């Protein structure tokens, strides 16, 4: 019979929220299945192993799970001490990728390591570093954010934003904005400060959009502008930028309530939706598993976010709270933005769907963040 111990003396793992890990693994399993269904036909046609992508994704998931478990054990409060160093290292990595990275789809965002079949995207890791560093910074200020402090926080965000802008990768930039907004809002930034910054942000975006029209330099690339314009007017350039939006909505809608069955989706099989294994993986789910599948996925995500929200609320430690808020904001934004774009309610930006999209860096980072949240959940009663 166990003696009643003080909460602080019990093993923290007793309080760990394992259901989060379970949900993450469920999502990852769905991801592998969808990776397979959206690539097997083309791979087989090209005479390659149809499971090439799925197998690779399995490898990423295994690495991710290992990192998630690893991130659970070490007291997360130690992370706080290394937050600044981690931030610095990742910023250097972001800087380096501009010079040593490989270019894909017009963005220089990946490191290619010799001997590996996949690349490493430092911007994904920067998300974790920024979440942790921003949480540490805000926690230091004890939740009292004055304008000056807010300025420093913005500076912390501005560095990765600037570096990623140079790659360029609009989607990932927006993720950082979401993380920053979430953490700072919860941390107690004045609504009017947020409002002013938002206004400035909107003006900057509008300026970027129109700078070349107004005689200034071209800040947004034409493709980016086109994608945003296509979002506002889907009939614009049917075969070009709107093609993705139209095809992905057609695919999702064609799924109906029950879906066409795994590996049966015509849009998916005929490769009519570009980038289907990465940013548009949700369309494969929508077409092949229908509204039922979409609901299951959304509920799994909702459960995951709800758990993170509760852990945030119950944490006794400000650093833990803000780290959770960062993770929460990041996941929320990525999920909403990605699924929203495939369904035509948000503009098209290259943001992966956590756990589902094919890709090593994003999968590992998602698992790592979940590991961090489990870690916080385990020690939420400690001060």
């Amino acid at each position, binding site marked *: 019979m166990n003696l009643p111990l003080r909460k602080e003396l019990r093993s923290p793992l007793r309080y760990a929220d394992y259901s989060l890990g379970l949900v993450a693994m469920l999502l990852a399993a769905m991801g592998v299945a969808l990776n397979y269904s959206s690539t097997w036909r083309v791979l087989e046609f090209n005479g390659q192993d149809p499971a090439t992508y799925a197998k690779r994704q399995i490898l990423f998931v295994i690495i991710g799970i290992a990192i998630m478990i690893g991130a659970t054990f070490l007291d997360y409060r130690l992370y706080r001490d290394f937050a600044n160093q981690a931030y610095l290292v990742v910023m250097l990595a972001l800087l380096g990728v501009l010079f040593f990275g490989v270019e894909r789809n017009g963005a220089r965002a990946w490191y290619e390591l010799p001997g590996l079949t996949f690349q490493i995207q430092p911007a994904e890791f920067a998300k974790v570093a920024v979440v942790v560093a921003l949480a540490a910074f805000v926690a230091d200020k004890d939740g009292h954010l004055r304008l000056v402090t807010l300025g420093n926080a913005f500076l912390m965000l501005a560095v990765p934003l600037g570096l990623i802008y140079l790659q360029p990768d609009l989607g990932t930039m927006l993720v950082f904005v979401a993380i920053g907004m979430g953490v700072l809002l919860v941390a107690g930034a004045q609504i009017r400060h947020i409002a002013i910054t938002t206004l400035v942000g909107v003006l900057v975006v509008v300026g970027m959009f129109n700078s070349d029209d107004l005689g200034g330099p071209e800040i947004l690339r034409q493709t980016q502008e086109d994608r945003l314009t296509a979002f506002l007017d889907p009939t614009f350039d049917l075969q070009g930028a709107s093609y993705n939006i139209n095809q992905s909505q057609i695919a999702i*809608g064609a799924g109906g309530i029950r879906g066409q069955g795994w590996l049966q989706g015509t849009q998916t099989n005929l490769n009519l939706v570009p980038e289907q294994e990465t940013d548009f993986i949700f369309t494969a789910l929508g077409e092949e598993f229908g509204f039922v599948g979409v609901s299951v996925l959304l509920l799994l995500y909702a459960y995951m976010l709800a758990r993170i929200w509760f852990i945030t609320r119950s944490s006794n430690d400000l650093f833990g709270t803000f780290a959770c808020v960062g993770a929460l904001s990041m996941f929320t934004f990525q999920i909403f933005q990605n699924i929203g774009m495939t369904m035509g309610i948000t503009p098209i930006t290259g943001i992966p769907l956590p756990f589902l999209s094919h890709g090593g860096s994003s999968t590992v980072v998602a698992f790592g963040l979940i590991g961090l949240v489990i870690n916080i959940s385990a020690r939420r009663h400690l001060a």
Partner: protein
Amino acid sequence: MNEQLKRRLAFLGILIVGLFAALFTRAWYLQVLTSEELAERALSNYVEIVITQPTRGRILDRHGVVLADNIRSGVITVNQSRYAPGQTDFVLEQLSELINIPVATLKSRLQDQQTHPLAAKVVATGLDEYGLLRVSELSLPGVEAKWVMSRVYPQNEIASHIVGYVGAMSQGQQDRLLQSGYLPSERVGKSGIEQIFEPDLHGQPGRTELEVDSTGRVHRILSQTSATPGSDVYLSIDADLQAATESYLRQGLIAARKTVSEDSGFFFPAIGGAAVVMDLRNGDVLAMASHPTYDPNWLVAGITTLEYQSVFENPYAPGALNNRAVQGLYSPGSVFKLITALAGLEARLISPRAAYYDVGYFQIPDKYGCTGRCTFYNADKAPLGIVDLSSAITRSSDAYFYKVAHDLYWIRGDEQWAIQDMAQLLGFGSQSGVQLPFEKHGRIGDGDVKKALFEAKPDAYNPYGESDQWLPGDNINTGIGQGFVSVTPIQLANAYAAFANGGTLFSPNIVEKVVSRTEDRFGTSVIDFDPRIQRVAEFPEGSGVVREGLHGVASKARRGTAWRAFEGYDATGYAVAGKTGTAQAEGRNPVLQRKKEDSAVFVAWAPRHDPRYVVAVVMEEAGFGGEAAAPVARRIFEALRAYEQRWPDPQVAFIPPQPECPEIPEALRGYQAFTSYVPEGCPWGIQVPRANTAEDVDGDGIPDLEERN
């Protein structure tokens, strides 16, 4: 956790719930409310673009004989993407039985790398209606039997080097051509007129945008533009004359192969050659032959590897694809003496009637302090005795022109490069500008050329490390068309044409006009190629004597170097003036592994006094110009006479060059001693009987009686 934090957290939670609600609503809307409509669009959601290939323009000769045409040809295509890997075998076996093509061949055609991997591959061509019917009755999935237009060359190898051929587009062209509306399967001009006039011949493809569902049913036509056929290209050549020229060239080469070379004791290899027939009044090319030749149909319809190798990779007949008339570079040999003679006259170094004693060689006088080679021998070291400019040309005295070139070398100032300047004036060393691809420039040796060659390829040009200064010997060699001189056959024809017509150097036209075949402009010519004059040269005083010398080449019995070839030639109204050349070729024959034999060259025009046509014949490793090349030219002139009778051409207005009439005091005009210096056609002096008179049956302007003396 303070209250404010909790409030803000709650706000965040509500926001998340709101966002998820939006996602659910949207998914509901797409997948439940509008699902049916979207599912239908999924079935018919892509636009199919049907590109109709325009009919390629034809290529015709000047009288409308079709040289390149299109025919309907049955093809069978197989779309591999309709099958799982390894399942094509069954289909191919079935096809193989029907159309009698081995399965292995069909398979290899499916592996064709030139078309898009997802596009249907052509596995059989040239089928007739029954073949197509048999295949379409079987209705195999992914197999299509259809008619396409394919290129055909009805005259086979006639004019193949001029017309060129079509073939699959190369990797380099692909992007550019696909952007301008070509189909990936389309064939484009790869050589000759097919290449140069590709934009005119091709036309504009038609484009129909169809909304097609996934089973291929057309729902509606979104937009449609019909194809614009390509324009016809009319050449200036005459197909019959071209055929005759080609066959005479071939026969001449075959004859040369039965002749033994005096130098080596072997039969002449006579591996190839070229002949150009030009109208010297306007620069129209009437025929242009190059040997060895090929049938472009082989390249379009496809031949076996063995056949390909035997024609296009045959070491005994190298370069079948090359048009030697514009791409072949040859030493002109003695035909270049025309240039040297004109240069000497221009520099006032030659007195046309001055006697020179040809002792069989020319030695650079000691006072010049000779370096390098000092003694230059005639071709067979034969002394010709006393010659003047006219007979030096007629009898091809090397020593005479050695001396002219040598003396020109020692003139300092502008005149030093008189030969080179005259050559350039007559179009050597630069492209003639005929509408054919890959035309060579050739080169005329001077100090710079020698320096550049020695620098660029010391092994080939300067194995013994000699000085790269321009030496007297270099100029002497240049003077008889050897050494650093290389020319193309069309340049030879063009230069002689310019001399014969009194100085007008044309850019030869091989294309007469481009005629539209679109509905609104059918039959009207889009481009007309009028005579293009490059420049008009002024020939120096005394060029009449040069002309006289050239007149003798084909007519002066036992004197002219080509007289034997023209023995028995019916010169009535069609006498020939020209020059033979026997040019030493550099290097070794790679197959026979011995020194290359001499090239035979002959350039001539006719009729002598009313020049209309110029013929240049060059035969590689075929021996003497007078023995190998002149007979070919003779037969071409005979064909030209027949051609003129068949196609009298009154449109060309042309005034033959007027002779230079020296001023001779009236009192002296009756005396033989003076009149013999006056060129024929002058109002005084001996009134030479015109051609076709009783005294001058051969029409060479010299009374026949006199000739026989």
